[in-house]
């Protein structure tokens, strides 16, 4: 299943778009750019140039996007190629702190930002945020950038009594996931310029009531779309994406189960191994000459137990959470695909209705239809670009994850080997010691 490099804008719907009047031809001002929607032009939207307004669902922002520089060739420059030299926004999540109040107990994390971007007043920021705040940010991003893939957050709800929300391991794991979440957003050419992110990173007090009006607007459009539009033909590449995600999700699930099973088996092995060591220890008391070798063996077994414990900890703290995070990521991606489908369905439905009406009374293409078309095209472009980015990141993440797993296992065996080897040296030294004393 190959996911190709972003070509041009996907054609949506049955009618060749070139036949339809340019959506902006009815506008008052001539634009600096004509967008050929059937061809091979890269959407100017994806080159990372900042968005001026903060309400992308409105027409003006779409216009603004289309006003952007268009002489980028699709195949020459990959706008998502991030090099450290071009990165100008760095965020880190660290220092978890427990807060105990009369109403509740919760953890806050320090969010540190370093940047040279003009959108930020200062070059450095340091704020304290709790999980709720991250959740807020994510919701805001999802609503304000519906055509983009928003990275997932670690799971919100944990069963009290099953997981200790304030244990060091849990907090550490969660913090790493939150850090990854912010880093992924900061690295995203579009999302990183989102004003909500800005607010999250800089405001002393997050006023979470912001954008209420926006929410309702989005809510409406969602309702509208959910009014049962049926998709005619999903373009092949999005079908491929969907299929890939389903299979990938399956495999992730399988790997998760295998990893958990290994943890369980290792834990049971550890229990038996500990008992094994104590039997050697109890034997020591019976012997004279064999004391040292037996003590040595008991010691080695104990060392191996320790190494095994570390391995298990690593797997449950570093390996499994990342795996689970990707499951959430897949969910997010599937959501975005669904939204894209919906938006295409809406467009097709409106288009059909408009065409029928046009045939009747020769009225021009209504603006809403054109708006829909734009929406679909933007969506497709954003999605494809994000997909590529996601694939690339996924490859890096899994490469790191799996080599990490291999490393931990190698480490474990190295520790055990060292212990047994030192025992042999010890015993063989004694052997030569004895031999020399015998011949003397």
């Amino acid at each position, binding site marked *: 299943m190959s996911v190709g490099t972003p070509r041009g804008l996907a054609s949506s719907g049955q009618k060749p778009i070139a036949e339809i009047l340019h959506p902006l031809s009815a506008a008052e001002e001539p634009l600096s750019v004509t967008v050929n929607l059937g061809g091979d032009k890269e959407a100017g939207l994806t080159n990372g140039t900042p968005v001026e307004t903060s309400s992308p669902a409105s027409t003006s922002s779409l216009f603004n996007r289309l006003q952007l520089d268009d002489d980028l060739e699709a195949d020459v420059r990959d706008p998502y190629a991030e090099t450290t030299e071009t990165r100008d926004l760095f965020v880190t999540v660290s220092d978890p702190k427990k807060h105990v109040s009369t109403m509740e107990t919760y953890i806050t994390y320090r969010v540190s930002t370093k940047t040279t971007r003009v959108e930020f007043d200062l070059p450095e920021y340091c704020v304290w945020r709790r999980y709720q705040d991250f959740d807020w940010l994510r919701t805001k991003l999802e609503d304000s950038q519906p055509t983009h893939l928003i990275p997932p957050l670690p799971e919100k709800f944990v069963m009290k009594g099953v997981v200790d929300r304030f244990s060091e391991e849990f907090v550490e794991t969660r913090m790493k996931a939150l850090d990854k979440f912010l880093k992924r957003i900061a690295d995203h050419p579009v999302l990183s310029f989102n004003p909500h992110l800005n607010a999250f990173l800089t405001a002393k007090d997050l006023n979470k009531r912001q954008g209420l009006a926006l929410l309702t607007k989005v809510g409406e459009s969602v309702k509208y779309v959910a009014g049962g539009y049926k998709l005619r033909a999903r373009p092949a590449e999005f079908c491929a994406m969907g299929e890939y995600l389903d299979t990938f999700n399956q495999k992730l699930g399988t790997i998760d189960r*295998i990893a958990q099973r290994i943890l369980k*088996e290792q834990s*049971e092995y550890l229990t*038996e191994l500990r008992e094994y060591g104590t039997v050697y220890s109890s034997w020591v008391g019976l012997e004279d000459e*064999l004391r040292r070798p037996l003590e040595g063996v008991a010691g080695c077994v104990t060392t191996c137990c320790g190494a095994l414990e570390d391995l298990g900890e690593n797997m449950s703290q570093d390996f499994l959470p990342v795996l689970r995070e990707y499951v959430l990521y897949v969910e997010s991606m599937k959501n975005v695909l669904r939204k894209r489908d919906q938006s295409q369905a809406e467009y097709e439905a409106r288009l059909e209705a408009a065409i029928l009406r046009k045939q009747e009374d020769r009225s021009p293409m209504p603006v809403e239809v054109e708006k829909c078309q734009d929406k679909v095209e933007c969506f497709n472009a954003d999605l494809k670009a994000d997909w590529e980015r996601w694939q690339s990141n996924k490859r890096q993440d899994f490469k790191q994850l*799996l080599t990490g797993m291999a490393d931990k296992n190698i480490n474990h065996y190295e520790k055990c080997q060292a212990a*047994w080897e030192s025992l042999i040296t010890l015993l063989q030294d004694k052997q030569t010691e004895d031999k020399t004393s015998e011949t003397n």
Partner: protein
Amino acid sequence: MMMADSGSNEEVAVIVNTDITSTESENNLINTMVERGTALLRKMEINVAEAEKRTGKNTVNMQETYTVYLIEIRPAETVPEGGTPATPDTLWRRYSEFELLRTYLLVTYPYIIIPPLPEKRAEFVWHKLAADNLDPDFVERRRVGLENFLLRVASHPVLSNDKIFFLFLTEEKGWREAVLETGFQDKVDSRLKSLSAMFRVKNPDKRFTALKHYSDELNTVISQLLRVRVKVADRLYGVYKVHGNYGRVFSEWSAIEKEMGDGLQSAGHHMDTYAASIDDILEEEEHYADQLKEYLFYTDAVRSVCRKHELIQYELEIVAQDLVHKKQQKEELATGTVRIFSLKGMTSKLFGQESQEQRESRLAALEQSIQEGEETLKEKNTECHEFVQTAWEDIERFKEQKDKDLREALISYAIMQISMCKKGIQVWSNAKECFNKM
């Protein structure tokens, strides 16, 4: 094949089975440590080379399947360069014949710790397959154990000189008759058979008490060790095998990936290799378990010697007691005082004195009995003394052997663990390389 160190008597020769591969030999355990100096081993090399299945009619005329083992005897001369080794003399023996030999040795040399046979039925096995007596792995391990037994006997300063043992190695037919002809069954003391029989020994020999105690404790600890080892092996098996599932899922996953595909696929193969490696690892560990088992069974032999000593001591005390009793009776009879209760004394008190004649004849009989008693006491004393002496000689020899053997076993166990770690590092390094290419 006997690999002997040249040099002083202090050095030990290592006997290694010719059938094992060099890798086995490298990782493997030393089967027996043999002191140079038994006449028998100077003359011949002993191998249990093969095992074969036979069917035949047993004593109740029913068909049965059993295994026979081929014993090979070669003259122990060094073969000149380019020369062919002499063809061995061979004969076939089944397990029950080994058992008969051992029983004979047990009865004939009660003061010797007789080397044990490998177990009749597989116990302490981690994999249910190997519990079957006809299972090839079990048969193989038994073959090694039987060879070990023969070498132990052949290298024993006392047992190696036994004629029946020699015939066992050289006379296939007619051996059974020869053993039975020795009449050793008559010597079997039925009292010893009952393990729970307690002899109340008045003056227990502290050394034997301590030895019996040690032997019991050693038995307990080795049993425990073997039991837990099985559980450990079981669990480790599980850990390795589950990793095999990674192989399959990586393969399936690689099918939907572009650049990651190759790396994932090859890493998957390494996971399969990892999962498969545990079978050999655990098979090797069985050799270690066998070494422990030998000493587990040895504790029974030690216990047996202690009990024989108890019996001899007990008999000695009975004889001594009996003698004292008789002497006291004589004194009473001579002086007319009744110090100890005797039926004769009571009846004569109740029913009147006996005549002088009667008294004198009784005295004479008692005198005779006392004389015989003293002879018996002297014999028993000598017997006991000799037993203790020869037994302790053998016990000291055994202790040294045990310390050396178990130490070697522990070292080879450590070597096995190191080998397992190295294999693990290799596989995961290979997998890591594949992951890096993703």
